[in-house]
């Protein structure tokens, strides 16, 4: 079941096309990674989901229904460029922002107290925002984003400005929200965190979607029959015995030689192992699956060529 379906959406700004016929399905209760280089159109897409802008053409469905104004209360959005009123008190401001999402004042206060205690920022309730460190402000913003318990959460670069401890805490909170049934759209340039957190991804480049699917699928799609192995023994003999294969990478260490080989589709990986064990002792052998970072670079540069 898809919580959000974007179908054939196009959006142009005075001569510049921000999104060109983009269709993306966001499955429910999953973490969805929205990836792409700067200026690819991610922010425009997020703004369309948030009804900050409307598409020129195409349909946007929220749980199978066309998006309507009250849906903003079912969505939580943490923008990349986020700020707070500097002169306002922390608690008061959080209540205000929660009220704008449709919570009542007493409800908002009750929930805020829970989260402020959990994130250990309760002593700052009556302080002005400008007195808070950047990390603390980020915590406040995160709390405000999730406070109204939205079904769909959008985080744009949520970890920027957090130290590793807090970033980890945040990551666990996001996964916890997913477990409770929320859907998360996660936009970031940090590919390691994509692998850790996301179930599915879509990659946007030059206003078009160029890649979509689950993280495992996408990585398998890009693996291309390459194997890595470590072995001891004569580096030279092994290399010579593999002369028929395409060797992607190799390096010589005393007791730990490394070789990365690209096999033609017709050849089984066993025949590669056979050749190696004749000349040396195999320490490890595995199929090389590219990480998201490599896939990102490959997809985007390949596209741009």
């Amino acid at each position, binding site marked *: 079941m898809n919580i959000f379906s974007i179908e054939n959406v196009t959006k142009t700004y*005075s001569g510049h096309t921000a999104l060109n016929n983009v269709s993306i399905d966001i499955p429910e209760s999953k973490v969805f990674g929205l990836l792409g280089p700067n200026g690819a159109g991610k922010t425009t897409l997020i703004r369309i989901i*948030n*009804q*900050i*802008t*409307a598409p020129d053409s195409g349909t946007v469905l929220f749980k199978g229904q066309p998006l309507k104004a009250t849906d*903003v209360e079912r969505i939580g959005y943490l923008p990349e460029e*986020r700020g707070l009123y500097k002169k306002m008190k922390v608690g008061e401001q959080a209540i205000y922002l929660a009220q*704008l999402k449709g919570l009542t004042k007493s409800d908002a206060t009750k929930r805020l107290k829970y989260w402020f205690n959990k994130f250990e920022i309760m002593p700052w309730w009556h302080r002005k925002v400008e007195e808070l460190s950047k990390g603390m402000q980020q915590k406040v913003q995160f709390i405000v984003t999730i406070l109204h318990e939205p079904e769909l959460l959008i985080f744009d670069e949520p970890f920027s400005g957090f130290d590793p401890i807090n970033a980890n805490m945040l990551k666990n909170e996001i996964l916890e929200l997913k477990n409770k049934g929320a859907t998360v759209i996660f936009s970031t340039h940090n590919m390691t965190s994509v692998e850790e957190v996301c179930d599915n991804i879509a990659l946007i480049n030059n206003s078009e979607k160029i890649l979509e699917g689950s993280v495992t699928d996408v990585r398998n799609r890009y693996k291309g029959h390459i194997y890595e192995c470590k072995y001891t023994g004569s580096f030279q003999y092994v290399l010579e015995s593999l002369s028929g294969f395409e060797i992607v990478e190799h390096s010589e260490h005393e007791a730990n030689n490394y070789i990365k080989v690209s096999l033609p589709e017709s050849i089984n990986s066993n025949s590669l192992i056979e050749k190696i064990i004749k000349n040396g002792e195999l320490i490890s052998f595995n199929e090389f699956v590219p990480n998201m970072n490599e896939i990102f670079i490959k997809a985007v540069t390949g596209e741009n060529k």
Partner: protein
Amino acid sequence: MNKTFTIISREYTTRVRKKSFLIMCIIGPLLFAGMMIVPTYMAQMEDTEMKIIAVADSSHLFYGAFPETEYLKFEYLPNADLNKYKNEFHNSRYYALLFISHVVVSSPNAVHMYSNKSPGLGVRMHIANTIEKKLESDKLKTFGITQETLNAVKTNITVRSVKLSESGDEKESNFTLAMIVGYVVGFLIYFTLFFSGTQVMRGVIEEKSNRIIEVIISSVKPFQLLMGKILGVGMVALTQFAIWIVLTIGISAIVSPMFMPDVENLNETVRIQDFMDTGSSIATQQVDTDLINRELTGMLLSLHNIDFAVIILSFIFFFLGGYFLYGSLFAAVGSAVDGDTDTQQFMLPVTLPLIFAIFVMINTVQNPESALTYWCSIIPFTSPIVMMARIPFGVPYSQIFLSAMLLIITFIIFTWLASKVYRTGILMYGKKPSWKEMYKWIKYKN
């Protein structure tokens, strides 16, 4: 709608709780009350230092001629060497040494006052007037004209203007009073439009530059935010007015009896004031006092004839109308720029009509029936200021109505246009937009 209310209440409470608001609340009425009280108080404040002026009169015309007051005395010196008096002056108890040369009748430079201080204007005028009057009456005598004849020749005229309304009612109007009221109201509206408009602009720039804007417009429509802000700031201004009016009346009521003259001793005060101003002799003072009395009574009479209900109602209307118009324009300017420093280029077209209006307003209070005034009180960009300055002089309701209608239509159109610029502008960062781009923003569908 509920959310717009939440926004209004935030905009309102954060501003009302600011120290600057409290300070303005207190300073405002003090300033207004001060403007009314201080001149009267100053006029009453007598110069209590005893001044004795030595008169060395070589024309022998002025012995005992200078009228004395409680703190200003004259001593007539036997005619001796002026240089001797001058040399002794520093050791004497005299405030000044007045020397009248024997050519005083024919030469304007025949009177000198020597002092180690600079004698005040009041003292100098007192002396000059006395000498002039004395010489005048002496000369009249030589022509055979008596003071009585002279008094009989003088006629005092005050023009009391009575406005004939179409229904035939006669209303006494007082130009000076209408002028003062018109001027104060016009200026108040100008100042508040400017102040509140800038507040709206600052608010927009603040939200844009600290990047909270994107969070907020993912919860509410930009138009709701814009309206909430404009209404919130507008209510702050109205609250300020209300506090000012109450406090001004309060302060005046408490303080006035202590400083302001009662009608009974009005004579007394006016005489003192008159003395300080012109130093004219007692005889003519009496006449002036009567005149001023009549003028004051006239003013008080026509005070009842100025329709304060109309003024207050139209003030609130024209303030709100003008404020919606200019407030939304200021908001559009704020949305187009990244920071306070970039506002100049776009501020000018917005503030120009306001500044023009204030010049017309100054003309209006002097000449309320001019064509310029008429048109500027109808045209919506200047009407809030100019119409308000005109109203104390009496304006036909049909004209007020026409002006009001035009203002409503204009602010609806301009708020709509401004909201379009605003909606796009708040999400644009970096490059300062050109006029052409802003025009494109207006045309964007969404």
